[in-house]
């Protein structure tokens, strides 16, 4: 589904990703962990197509197509979803209106008819239940005045609405209390299927109690320095990153 080979990316003169290679197949869950400043969020942004960063070398394919030649919205319409660490507010634009456009763009890309108002409302109701999102929030402006937890739930609600092939969730668990974490994580798990894949970027093993990863990667200084199974996350929780970083330094 996603194949990344030796990807380098920089902002200005500063190289942030220094040779990332990663393969994600349908049905898999990958976790990306690593100390602050290692390039996790940059990786998510670069894959989504943010032009804050310049890809200097390497390649990436998504569903067999050259990912790097696609615009941000083309990637999204093909089924790539980024759950934002800091979702932005769009004053005056209702969540319902925003989602209606987004959903219909994705449908148009797939050659499907746009949803009728009734179908759309039904879909909204069904999907907001996935993350126990208060239906009042969907009539408010996008993220405006949402609490931290509501913003994160809202990201997963959008993921449910758009039914992505590949979801990249950037620190979706940060800033959540225990209940919200459970709701968000359960929501993500319920959306997981054999024909889609999820990449979660996280600092904490506790998210992985709900979303059980097939692979755990450690990102450090712009490179994946270690990959393992879910037990790696447990070890990191106990021992921190030092043992790995020391290894890497030698």
């Amino acid at each position, binding site marked *: 589904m996603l194949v990344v080979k030796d990807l380098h990316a920089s902002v200005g003169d500063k190289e942030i990703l220094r040779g990332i290679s990663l393969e994600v197949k349908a049905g898999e869950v990958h976790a990306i962990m690593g100390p602050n400043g290692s390039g996790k969020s940059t990786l998510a942004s670069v894959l989504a*197509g943010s032009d804050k960063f310049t890809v200097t070398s390497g390649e990436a394919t998504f569903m067999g197509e050259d990912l790097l030649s696609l615009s941000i919205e083309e990637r999204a319409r093909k089924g790539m*979803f980024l759950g934002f660490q800091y979702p932005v507010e769009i004053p005056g634009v209702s969540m319902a209106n925003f989602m209606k456009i987004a959903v219909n763009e994705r449908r148009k890309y797939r050659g499907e008819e746009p949803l009728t108002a009734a179908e759309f409302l039904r879909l909204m109701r069904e999907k907001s239940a996935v993350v126990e999102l208060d239906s009042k929030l969907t009539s408010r402006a996008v993220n405006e005045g949402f609490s931290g937890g509501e913003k994160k739930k809202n990201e997963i609600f959008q993921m449910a609405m758009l039914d992505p092939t590949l979801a990249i969730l950037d620190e979706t668990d940060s800033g959540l209390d225990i209940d919200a974490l459970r709701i968000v994580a359960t929501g993500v798990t319920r959306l997981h299927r054999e024909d889609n894949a999820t990449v979660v970027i996280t600092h904490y093993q506790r998210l992985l109690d709900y979303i059980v990863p097939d692979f755990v990667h450690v990102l450090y200084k712009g490179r994946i320095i270690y990959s393992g199974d879910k037990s790696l996350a447990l070890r990191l929780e106990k021992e921190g990153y030092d043992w790995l970083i020391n290894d890497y330094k030698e």
Partner: protein
Amino acid sequence: MKDNNKDIIDTLQEREYQYGFTSDIETETIAKGLNEDIIRTISAKKGEPEWMLEARLKAFRHWQKMPLPTWAHLRIPLIDFQDIIYYAEPKPRKKLSSMDEIDPELKRTFDKLGIPLEEQMALAGVAVDAVMDSVSVKTTFRETLAEKGIIFCSISEAIREYPDLVRKYLGSVVSYADNFYAALNAAVFSDGSFCYIPKGVRCPMELSTYFRINAEGTGQFERTLIVADEGAYVSYLEGCTAPRRDENQLHAAVVEIVVERDAEVKYSTVQNWYPGDKDGKGGIYNFVTKRGICHENARLSWTQVETGSAITWKYPSCVLAGDNSVGEFYSVAMTNNFQQADTGTKMIHLGRNTRSRIVSKGISAGRSENSYRGLVRIAPKADGARNYSQCDSLLIGDKCGAHTFPQIDSRNRTAMIEHEATTSKISEEQLFYCNQRGISTEDAVGLIVNGYAKEVLAKLPMEFAVEAQKLLAISLEGSVG
């Protein structure tokens, strides 16, 4: 994002002005230029009574002595007032008694503009007076309105048929001596709409005037007079378009509104005159004086969506003469490419406990200049007057300008005046977020701008709000930075 945006700017700037077609209608015009003979000709063509001609001549003589106003934040090229045709009418002009008698080409023009002149428009519940160049072509729904005693017709007709009403009110709110363009209008106005709602009558439908400049080299000078008698209510909408032309065309209108005791008038404008091309060539110069007077307990609400015109000079105002009267001004003014707008309002509080509210949303893109100019004046006797003003500016790109010139003049200690202002830009983060959800930058800008303008758009009658939203998305999507 920069490169991406540049492409979008390029493609969007080439987007055609949707209403830029010219209709092939035989037009009868008079000679170019302005002098007393021209004014006599206009007056004679309209079959006006002597008093009207005298009023025109008086205005003209005064206008000749007036200097061109230069105080606005606008670069106005020299206008040769002798190089303008002051009267044009679609030919042949005969009394129209049914839709079938209208020139089919003219009818097609209005169809293209989406003006529903047919009876089917009953569904929409809108009565339309359409003014093409200088002549009012057809006023629909006359009979339905007449049952309630409502008069809705062209101003020329009103001058002939209701001279007492017209004489009583015409020029009572905007005198011919008010300003340069108002004086010019008073001298040469060719047509426009007249509306009278009798005491205690609630007008059952939206009244609407549609203005279109078609003929080349002409100016359009409409005069609108709306009178809501005691306890009456009316909602009125005005729409404007013009063909694309390389030359600049002058539009200098006057709108006067009289809101008698306990009456309410809502006046909404969607102004989409041709703004000129992406290099700033052509477009309408729109110099408009709009003012209403509110008597005791009366309410006047101006809502405007301004997207067109090369130059806009316009300050719909409220004179709050009666105690407890209320004035409101809701505005979205959008400028793109080389457009210039200097627009805002005046709230003149004369009566006690008068209240006013101003919500102005400016949107500047391209190389345009957009200014809000407002005056809030509280007279010495206006005890307990209150004003709230909110002036927001949204900038798109880094070559445009947004300016605010608010003036507050309070002569009463009990007055409460609040002013809030913000300036913002569409952020790259917002665009990235929208893009990531599969929404193109073009659509995202339209969405964000409509969200920004929502508070004002919500004040428009439903069917026009939808139109205005589309219009904003089309005219604005030009530049993102």
